């Protein structure tokens, strides 16, 4: 049952989603990591702590063309004889996993939220998070793309052997003209803490208190669909059925009524706090903690208490 875990580093600090993929793989079988990106050999070796036995690193491939990444993984699958491929269900995983599935004719479990059960079935979110489906893979090789923040990881003390891995990944027809980065933000899809606000904020000029709370917590910011649609907040912050689905440990919803389409994107959250002036807001039914009150008074208070808590802990 050897497992190949594909990762892409952006520095020596691996994202939590990357470590989760490696650890997840190690719960299935002996893990070989296939890495691209700038991480040093030492950093790659440290993936042994999360269960990697060996790391194969391809230093030549820098593009994010899913066709090339797919060719790279397919070559590594055959040279390592792996029967399971694990990727993180991030933007690259989303575009690579299906291509790889078609290339290898291997069943893909997209957006897994848990380990295979005794009979090999794997749970995935379906109906935009309103239900879980258990998927059986009918092929000898299976591909699993793992939803970030779905499993608990623990670190050991092993180190992994790092080896260069070279292969021809074919030409790319995709040329990158420009990259626009959002600097210094916590990426929403893998954030553990999320502060989200909606129309109850009454205007984009009032987002300062939302951002202050997020900053005090070390949380990412998100928003509801109407707020993204009228341009108060950028589209990439929109969570919900037609935005992105997230499953943070803590989701704080401020001035969001909790339409079913919004809940679909967030009901995988472990703990939900709802702050709303309207006691009838449907979101309270999905909440663990509710605060009926005015965000303009409650948020500064909550931010102060968080700061106080952080300074004492």
């Amino acid at each position: 049952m050897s497992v190949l875990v594909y990762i892409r580093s952006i520095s020596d600090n691996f994202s939590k989603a990357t470590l989760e993929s490696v650890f997840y793989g190690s719960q299935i079988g002996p893990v070989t990591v296939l890495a691209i990106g700038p991480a040093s050999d030492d950093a790659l070796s440290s993936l042994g702590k999360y269960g990697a036995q060996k790391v194969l690193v391809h230093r030549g491939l820098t593009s994010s063309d899913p066709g090339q990444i797919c060719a790279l993984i397919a070559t590594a699958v055959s040279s390592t004889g792996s029967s399971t491929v694990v990727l993180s269900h991030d933007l690259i995983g989303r575009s690579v996993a299906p291509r790889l599935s078609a290339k290898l004719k291997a069943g893909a479990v997209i957006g897994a939220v848990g380990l295979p059960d005794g009979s090999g079935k794997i749970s995935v979110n379906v109906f935009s998070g309103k239900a879980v489906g258990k998927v059986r893979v009918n092929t000898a090789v299976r591909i699993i793309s793992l939803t970030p923040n779905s499993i608990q990881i623990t670190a050991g003390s092993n180190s992994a052997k790092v080896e260069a891995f070279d292969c021809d990944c074919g030409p790319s027809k995709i040329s990158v003209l420009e990259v626009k980065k959002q600097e210094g933000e916590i990426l929403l899809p893998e954030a553990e803490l999320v502060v989200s606000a909606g129309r109850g904020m009454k205007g984009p000029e009032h987002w300062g208190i939302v951002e202050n709370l997020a900053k005090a917590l070390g949380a990412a910011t998100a928003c509801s669909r109407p707020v993204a649609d009228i341009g108060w907040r950028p589209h990439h912050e929109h969570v919900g059925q037609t935005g992105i689905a997230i499953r943070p440990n803590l989701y704080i919803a401020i001035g969001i009524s909790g339409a079913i389409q919004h809940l679909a994107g967030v009901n995988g959250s472990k703990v939900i706090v709802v702050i709303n002036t309207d006691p009838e807001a449907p979101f309270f039914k999905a909440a663990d903690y509710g605060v009926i009150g005015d965000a303009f008074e409650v948020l500064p208070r909550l931010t102060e208490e968080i700061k106080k808590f952080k300074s004492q802990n």
Partner: protein
Amino acid sequence: MKILVCISKAPDTTTKIAFADNNTRFNEVGVQYIVNPYDEWYALVRALELKEAQGGTVTTITVGIAADDAIIRKALAIGADDAIRINADPKDAYYTAFQIAEFTKGKGFDLILTGKETINYNGSQVGGMIAEILSLPFVSLASKLEVVNGKAKIACEVAGGVEVLEVPTPLVISAAKGMAEQRIPNMRGIMAARTKPLTVVEPVACEELVTFEVYELPPSKSECRYVDPSNMAELVGLLHTQSKVI
């Protein structure tokens, strides 16, 4: 320019999700099907805008059963020229992708567009699979698309930012928010859709790579605990000691 838009059905976004036959299949009783919003709002409408600006044709393709003709007619009412239905109840994403890829062979489509995912299975798989089967480039989660002189210029979401890419046609693109604005079909469109060609094609043999065996609904939430808005110290305490999330 010849554009193919892949259209899937999806349950209306307000559908209460339930399962039948010992939770082995989605309970369709009383479910209203719609065109999957990503396919309609972004892929189809952008295809129509490109056609209106540059000429060409927009064809939709659906792997589905006869009952799905209703949502296919909706896509025609919005403005597609003609529609193809591969006559099968798709078993998994690969099955769907394989049928579409086989159909397109030799037909000279410049662009194949899909929505970024369906709102029922959320797999975002079909586009990438079609691209692989046809050995075409694939760009996922595109939020802007222009095509000039056989080259597609695409903005797409990447981790922590946006990339602008240039790719020669033909290619496969999955469309996300930002690509276009929803269009409501007008009466003339609805009338015209009745007589537009909807061609039914029989499927080719294809294996089933994965099977959804059983479904579960998430456990119901425990009762909401209300905290006094003047006592945020209590909320912070609960998040720390009871929920252990901070």
